[in-house]
């Protein structure tokens, strides 16, 4: 029973990982690639971590796997944000000090 679940989780993880990587290769521009990487890959990692967690040799090991996944999630989300922001700022040519300003072209609130 547990085996079947593990196989399923690993299969799903494989699917999401591949989706993320294919997205990185095939999607047309940087911003959509960031999207693929940040979301699909981390979901894949989460599913894989869950599968491995179920078979960890101790509670400490399971906790470590969980911590690694959370850290990877935070790291990935943050790097996605940072890289995307750089992309936007550099392509619109706005100075970096407009952090928090409404996007160019939006009606003034």
């Amino acid at each position, binding site marked *: 029973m547990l085996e079947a679940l593990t*196989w399923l989780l*690993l299969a799903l993880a494989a699917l999401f*990982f591949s989706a993320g990587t294919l997205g*990185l290769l095939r999607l047309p521009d940087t911003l959509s690639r960031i999207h693929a990487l940040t979301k699909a890959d*981390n979901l894949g990692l989460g599913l894989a971590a869950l599968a491995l967690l179920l*078979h960890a040799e101790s509670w400490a090991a399971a906790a470590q796997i969980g911590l690694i996944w959370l850290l990877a999630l935070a790291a990935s989300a943050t*790097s996605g944000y940072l890289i995307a922001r*750089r992309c936007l700022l*550099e392509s619109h040519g706005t100075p970096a000090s407009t952090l928090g300003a409404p996007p160019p072209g939006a009606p003034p609130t």
Partner: protein
Amino acid sequence: METLPPTLPLALTLFALLLVLNLALGLLRVLRGPGLTDRLLAAQLLGSTGVALLLTLAALQGWPSLRDVALVFALLGLLAAVAYARLRAEQHRA
């Protein structure tokens, strides 16, 4: 939670092979680019795939130390992205 179920090593090995394939594909993006940002993204991909691969190998080979390596991978993936973003910000401001 002690001995692995019998089919698990096979599942883990297949998964690991798939991750290696993903690494190879990510490598393509790192080498081709075309820009700096795309290569950095691909490096992040190598990082997260590396984390998954290390966690899998830790279970497959029974080496808990590999989880520590995975932890460090995750941390420095963040450092690289932060360094890139802030250095670019500095550069474009000057």
